[in-house]
């Protein structure tokens, strides 16, 4: 091959990916870098943003327990949401996978439903059911005498976990479903013929094989829940803040952009660490079995 052709061969992939690469750099990398830089700038009530390099914002986040509480709450909610979707979503996917054609597509639509509805309508729906004394479910249960006081839902972590799990469910179900599709269709019959009962089949044969699907679904759900904004904003409002709503408030209400940028950057870094770390763990754990 001549040198010119060789050079063209090297350049061609770059030339072909250039448009997408430019978009990626322009709308993601540059704003991201600017946000990181912003987090090191100074800010004052009357002087606004000063482009200097100081660690004030970071120092404040690290030392003030207010921020620590906020981050712990964020990850606690994300973790509980992940557990809830896994516990409900995995059996849901298994049942869905065993349904016959027509029912399968109907229920797949039901599962995907939350993603098709606007986050505001969906979350306000929860508020209509459980919001204080006027919530439909609360009213019903109270008039039936099951409960005395309304079930607290709005402005609670439980409410946030339930509402988040509702919208995150499709990601878990689809991820587990993909793992189920890779299962040998005869594998349950094989275990059956060797004398295994239905519980043993699920525990010893199905569960271990769909575990990678559950875990990858968990990574998606966890990272989306930890960075979720709209649902926590509606359920938690200003009373129960998480990292995302905190950053929003700093940007748009306090107008302390550098502090908001520091919160956002920390959230991003923590999430990247958790996701990359657990992904590496999963890959090592299942390397032998699932290549």
């Amino acid at each position: 091959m001549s040198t010119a052709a060789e050079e063209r061969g090297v350049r061609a992939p770059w030339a072909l990916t250039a448009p997408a690469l430019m978009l990626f750099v322009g709308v993601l990398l540059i704003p991201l870098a600017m946000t990181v830089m912003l987090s090191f700038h100074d800010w004052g009530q009357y002087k606004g943003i000063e482009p200097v390099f100081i660690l004030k914002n970071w120092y404040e986040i690290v030392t003030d327990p207010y921020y620590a509480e906020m981050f712990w709450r964020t990850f606690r909610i994300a973790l509980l949401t992940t557990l809830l979707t896994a516990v409900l979503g995995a059996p849901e996917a298994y049942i869905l996978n065993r349904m016959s054609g027509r029912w399968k597509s109907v229920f797949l639509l039901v599962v995907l439903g939350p993603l098709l509805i606007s986050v505001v309508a969906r979350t306000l729906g929860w508020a209509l059911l459980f919001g204080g004394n006027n919530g439909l479910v609360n009213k019903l249960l109270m008039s039936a005498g099951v409960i005395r006081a309304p079930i607290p839902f709005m402005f609670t972590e439980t409410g946030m976990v339930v509402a988040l799990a509702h919208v995150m469910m499709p990601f878990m179900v689809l991820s587990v479903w993909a793992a189920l599709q890779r299962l040998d269709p005869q594998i349950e019959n094989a275990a059956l013929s060797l004398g295994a009962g239905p519980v043993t089949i699920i525990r010893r044969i199905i569960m271990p094989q769909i575990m990678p699907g559950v875990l990858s679904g968990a990574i998606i759900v966890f990272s989306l829940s930890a960075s979720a904004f709209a649902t926590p904003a509606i359920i938690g409002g200003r009373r129960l803040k998480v990292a995302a709503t905190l950053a929003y408030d700093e940007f748009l209400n306090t107008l302390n952009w550098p502090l908001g940028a520091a919160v956002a950057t920390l959230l991003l870094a923590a999430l990247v660490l958790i996701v990359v770390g657990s992904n590496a763990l999963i890959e090592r754990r299942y390397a032998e079995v699932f290549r």
Partner: protein
Amino acid sequence: MAYLELEGIAKQFGAQTVVDDFSLAVGKGEFISFLGPSGCGKTTTLQMIAGFLDPTRGAIRLEGKDLTAIHPAKRGLGIVFQSYALFPHMTAAENVAFGLEMRNVPRGERTERVRAALAMVGLAGYEDRHPRRMSGGQQQRVALARALVIKPSVLLLDEPLSNLDAKLREEMQIELRQIQRTIGTTTILVTHDQNEAMSLSDRIVVMSQGRIEQIGTPQETYEKPASAFVSQFLGKTNDFAATIDRTSAPARLIAGSWSAPAPAGLSGAVTVSIRPERIGFGDAGLTAKIVTRIFQGNHWLFQCDSECGPATVIRQNDGERQPAEGETVRLAWRPEDMSVRGEAAA
């Protein structure tokens, strides 16, 4: 008394009958093949024996006991699946041990039996391998060991060799036959490969469209096919339209310019079928012209255009001079080498 008995089995899915009126008696230690094209109902029949499907009608009995009343997990049958269906998250030894675990075999005995089973299929030393790290042939052996280690009353093989390449398939056929002879397990093999069925089984059940066409030894089904389907499915064959003339005595069977004394019973239009290797070139008989002549090492293959339609002839390469392409020859065969059916040739 038959060891495994299937009596008038039928399976319907909605309005579609997949298996109909299937009756078979299997002796203890026998190797039976269900042979037929895909969709003939052979796998469905196997699944009914295994218990994955319930027959719509009919009875399945094992040693006189009604098998359909027993839950599939309790039937104690060994099954090798076409896809092997190994448990990918378990090692070879764990796969083989699973059935023993379910039977609460104590750990010490379990380890010993797993080791022996893997050694029997030639996989000693592969205990800790995961299925994904094994070749297709090795996975196949693990599946066989897993099915045999529980000492099954019947071994069911569902197209177990169809995913292997030709050479490996032949090796596995020989090995499968040897293992089955050694341990004497009653075995039912489902296959669409006539060579496999013939080289492995004691008896073949030829199936088509959910019905049994013929049950017989490999030799019987090859040499005395009970129907046109059987003769065409098992190897190459020549079907010639012929007539039986009973107006003159003695009656004659006539196919073109070939004729022989008529067999008893039939008359009118019939079909005679003759295997290509049983036809010879002679001075009298069916007039034919050689269209192509193909040399295949140990034999010659001739495609001829005869007065009764196209004919295939196979001759041993015994050093004799063979007719050339375009030459006109006479085709003849011994009356005992043909089978005559009272149906007009299609």
